[in-house]
């Protein structure tokens, strides 16, 4: 059963068409990679799926409902969470609060309760905190819970972003270049972690990566995007030997 199915997606900015005739599908439990050269439109696709941009045309069927054009918070509530290529944490808030905000959509108490500070407020807050700490422990950030997000080292900021995304309890997690700026060793560790959370949280994952070799290792299926449309799709081995893909990355061979 497909979890998300995208058909004939179009998006242009002014005269520039960023995504055209984009077709894509991801089954429950899959880990799919979306790769492509710089400026191919990968992040635009992510922005369309998560509602940051509204598509000009086409449908995004998620859990049998068309979510195209919905606002981001509704899409998040339906179970899609993402991270960003350039880390976007709530910088002046603590690590713990960053994760707590992700739990806000299921806040267990009302506005009046929080102003009146009734016992159910304290109970709800304790619940939120316990839940948030669970994610911080998984990502080994528990001992840094009171630090400001902006003071964390780069690698930990990346991990915090994934923890925050997971705290929204998604069924589909979208990672936008999670390994950007990491060294090979950190990348390897991160990939193992992604594998693990996929199994443990019963997630489906869509991953953008720039680095081909990295994606080949973890992804079950790969889509290749160039100039806003899919040019190839298949298993990592098939992609590796696909002539069109090699052309897109390296240019055409001179006869």
């Amino acid at each position: 059963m497909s979890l998300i199915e995208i058909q004939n997606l179009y998006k242009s900015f002014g005269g520039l068409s960023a995504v055209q005739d984009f077709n894509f599908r991801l089954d429950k439990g899959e880990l799919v990679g979306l790769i492509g050269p710089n400026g191919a439109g990968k992040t635009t696709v992510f922005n369309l799926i998560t509602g940051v941009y509204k598509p000009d045309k086409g449908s995004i069927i998620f859990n049998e409902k068309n979510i195209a054009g919905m606002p981001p918070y509704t899409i998040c509530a339906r179970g899609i969470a993402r991270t960003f290529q350039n880390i976007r944490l709530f910088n002046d808030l603590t690590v713990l609060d960053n994760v707590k905000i992700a739990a806000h959509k299921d806040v267990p108490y009302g506005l009046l309760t929080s102003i009146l500070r009734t016992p159910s407020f304290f109970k709800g807050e304790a619940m939120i905190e316990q839940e948030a700490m669970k994610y911080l422990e998984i990502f080994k950030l528990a001992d840094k819970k009171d630090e400001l997000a902006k003071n964390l080292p780069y690698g930990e900021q990346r991990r915090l972003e994934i923890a925050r995304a997971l705290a929204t309890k998604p069924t589909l997690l979208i990672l936008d270049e999670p390994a950007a700026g990491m060294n090979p060793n950190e990348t390897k560790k991160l990939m193992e972690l992604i594998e693990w959370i996929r199994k443990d949280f019963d997630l489906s994952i869509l991953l953008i990566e720039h680095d081909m070799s990295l994606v080949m290792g973890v992804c079950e299926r790969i889509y290749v995007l160039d100039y806003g449309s899919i040019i190839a799709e298949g298993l990592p081995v098939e992609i590796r030997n696909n002539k069109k893909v090699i052309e897109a990355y390296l240019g055409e061979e001179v006869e």
Partner: protein
Amino acid sequence: MQEYKNNWARFCGEVLILAALFTLVQYLITAGLLDQYYQINLTSMFINIILAVSLNLINGFTGQLSLGHAGFMAVGAYTSVILTQMLGQPFIVGLIVACMVSALAGFIIGVPTLRLKGDYLAIATLAFGEIIRVILQNIDYVNGPAGILGITKMTTWPWLFGATILTIVVIVNLINSSYGRAIISVREDEVASELMGVNTTTYKVLAFVFGAMFAGLAGALYAHFFYIIKPETFNFLKSFDILVMVVLGGLGSTTGAIIAAVFITALTAALQAFPAIRMILYALILIIVMIFRPQGLMGNKELSRQTFGKIWSGRK
């Protein structure tokens, strides 16, 4: 459970301190030790605290630059005066209705303007404040530009104190809840906030409505202390005054807003004797603070018992 008990102990302690402060000032007033001059300044101070804390909710915590706070104050002032002076209602009714009408005004202004960002929002709210003023100038029922004179003095120390504490408690409790975190996340990164499931428009409007409501309360208290209200009192310079307090105290710090409101009121009072250099000195102090502490006196930190604890342990 231990934490819950600690909360109780802290709560009781805070109530005791506030009760002591209240009783002390009440005693000074009844004993006649606080003359008219001090009472006027004390009232201004507490009204300024309400204004600064409520504007800080919009500008500091939500990160939306609003320059129309005096407009909401005017709505509250006129609403309450119409009720108590012209319709003969008790003061409490005037206060409550003033809050409700200002909150409604906040909602009506907030929904269309909060789509705007930064400078554009500032201009829209500035224009709103001016519109309120011009409308009031042209309504004969409230005497147009001449304003309403001879308002019965009803803002006594208990009302003033109660309203200020109410404002602070409501806003602090709001900010330190999941709703408050949602509000702050809008300031931090609006896009990320939406993608984490926060309906940012809702929370911007919510903050705006709460801010407007308390500005209305401050307006009502103001009107029933100073005998006279006229549209000119609530011009954009008044909004700017409140903004200065918030920026000086530190955007996003409630204690900062309180400290700055107290400081600026005291400064204005102290400089009253030197009208010629008053504005120069006032501006100079602002410039100096902005050069040496651009994030405001408190930054976005709060002055709390932990702060004192840190200073204490640092000394040892």
